């Protein structure tokens, strides 16, 4: 069965919605004690506790989504629009120089 690009994009939007809901659900439901400032379960040990704490920005809901989108835009813009025009040369550059 061949799928056209519109159907692919519909599927993609559904996936986006599902993952956002799942992300929010996991964020607020899986470890509520972390958000309330409680101690991590002892069974995980100190290292796991530290990992769960991590950097403050990792606790922002849907941080991964924002970071991936903004980071992707910045990276592509930096590479293709910022750096490439400065360093691009013709394919025969090294033959000529």
């Amino acid at each position, binding site marked *: 069965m061949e799928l056209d690009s519109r159907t692919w994009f519909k599927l*993609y939007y559904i*996936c*986006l919605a599902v*993952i*956002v809901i*799942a*992300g929010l659900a*996991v*964020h607020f439901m*899986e*470890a509520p004690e972390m958000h309330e400032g409680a101690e991590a379960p002892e069974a*995980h*040990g100190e*290292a*796991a506790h*530290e*990992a769960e704490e*991590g*950097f403050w920005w*990792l606790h922002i809901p*849907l941080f*991964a*989504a*924002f*970071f*991936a*989108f*903004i*980071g*992707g*835009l910045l*990276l*592509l*813009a*930096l*590479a*293709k*629009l910022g*750096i*490439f025009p400065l*360093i*691009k*040369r*013709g*394919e025969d*550059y*090294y033959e000529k*120089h």
Partner: protein
Amino acid sequence: MATWIHPGFIYLFGALLIPVLRGKIRQAYMLFLPLAALTDLIFTARGAFGALPIETWHIPFLGYELLLGHIDNLSLFFAFLFVIVSFCMFLYALHVKEEWQHVSAFLYIGSTLGVVFAGDLFTLLFFWEVMAWASLFLIWYRKTDAAWKAGFRYIMVHSVGGVCLFAGVVLQLRATGSIAWGFETLHQGTSASYLMLTAFFINGAVPPLHAWLSDAYPEATVTGTVFLNAFTTKSAIYVLLRGFTGYEPLMLLGGIMAVYGIIYALIVNDVRRVLSYHIISQGGYMVAGIGIGTGLAVGGAIAHALCYTMCKTLLFMAASAVLATTGTIKLSDLGGLYKYMPRTFWFYMIGAFSISGLPFFSVFVSKPLVIESAVLADQPLVWLLLEAASIGTFLCLAVKIPYLTWLEREKPTNIQAKDPPVNMLLGMGILSVLCIAVAVYPQTMYHMIAPAVEELASEPLTFEHYIAHPYALSRVIELTMFFLFAFPAFWLLREPFTHRDAKIALDLDWFYRVTGKWVIWFCEKPLMAFASLIDRNVLKLAAFFVWVSRNPANALRIKGAETRLKLQKLISTSERARSYESGLERVQIRFPGELPRFGLGASMLLVLLFLAAYVLLYLLGV
């Protein structure tokens, strides 16, 4: 107890028979050798030659004892990786007719295994050099002018690396009197360790010593690149693990490496060059992990070496299949290949999803370990760089390359495209299965890594905590979200990428490619002109002394007469000068003439004069 056989020697000596074998027998033999090495490793792991660590194959050399077989958990893990991957590679390259290309590949892999099992610095140095020279022929066998030049630059850079390693070994030997090799013996901060580190950085393609990789690998043969991608850089990671675990500067260097490689991968036009730059980027994760040095980081670096090597090899195989069938691998020339090469496309996508680290694909069970270890070690900048490179990897390999190569626009009419021969598909197929299998059931890999982590890393417990739940729900959702939201970034900015600039991007190899030409010009033109000038004048001077020595008295007379003639020409009439000149010519023709006769007294005087001069010079200390 049975005697251990070095798996590297199975490759090295096995290669000797390849040129004499033909057809199916040669093909079967090429697959037999990796399988024999794999069997050897399985027996070793099962304790057939004793409990690990084992030290065997001692060879006396110049008063030292070489140790060719230092087998511990780390070396065994890397050996398994290299042997398994090499089997898939030889399956992929089975159709290649040039037997010497296969010989090069076998020597290359054999010497890599030599590096892995080296228990002393001399052995390491020897196999390090063999590795560089054997791999060179995988580039030169492309038989193009670009390949010839790139190969030449490749071996020049690796020779510099070899010299650094040699100098490091000599200094280490002078300082300690020992050729032992390992973390315990290599004291960080010494000149010896810096020189060795430089050599390891060159092979590991750590910026700014990386440019040889993106310069040479894309110019290698169709199957040569597939071999090259896996061994040189990963053996460098192995030696860094062995000698520099916990060396803090590697943390940030790894992060920079990851971003540097991915930025170039996003902009270059040649797909194999994209993948080559991406080797540098992924090497960054392992280097950062080694620098962080905790159990989680070191475990992640080792796991990443396996997961990433498998999927990167798969990607190179798919890219080389495109090159083999279409004759080009430039994005500016490709497009719409999906209809014509669907199997290759799906194998490529498995490799791309794996290397991006999507859940249930191999790198998902390795790369997050290093990134989370940066969080645990409280290294926000390293974390940021590694995460940025993760986004770039997905956008570059799982979005940009498939879009521009396989999906966007119709296939250009001037290229032919179809799926490659069955052996190439099989090679890709096996690696695809492995990429998924290792992700679905990572515990086997983790259990193999755990003892090595315990030997090398600080805080080994962090690794054990992680591997208990690699598929934590929050991690799966977070990473899926990460990739789903990265995609629209490309979609919004796709316009500049679809222009398909047939341009190259300058890199640091500019310094030795362009300035190298200047140096060659300087040597060929002004320096050679100066040298020939000096040469001519020295010869003239020597000839003059020879001439004078034939009759010094007459020679002095002639020279005096020549000077007088010049003066005559200036001050007297031309007739007088002409008669003087003819007189001089007669004297010159008669030269050397009769030698002057000295009496005994004059001779004694001369001898005494020379003796006095000698004594004077001696006393002055000249």
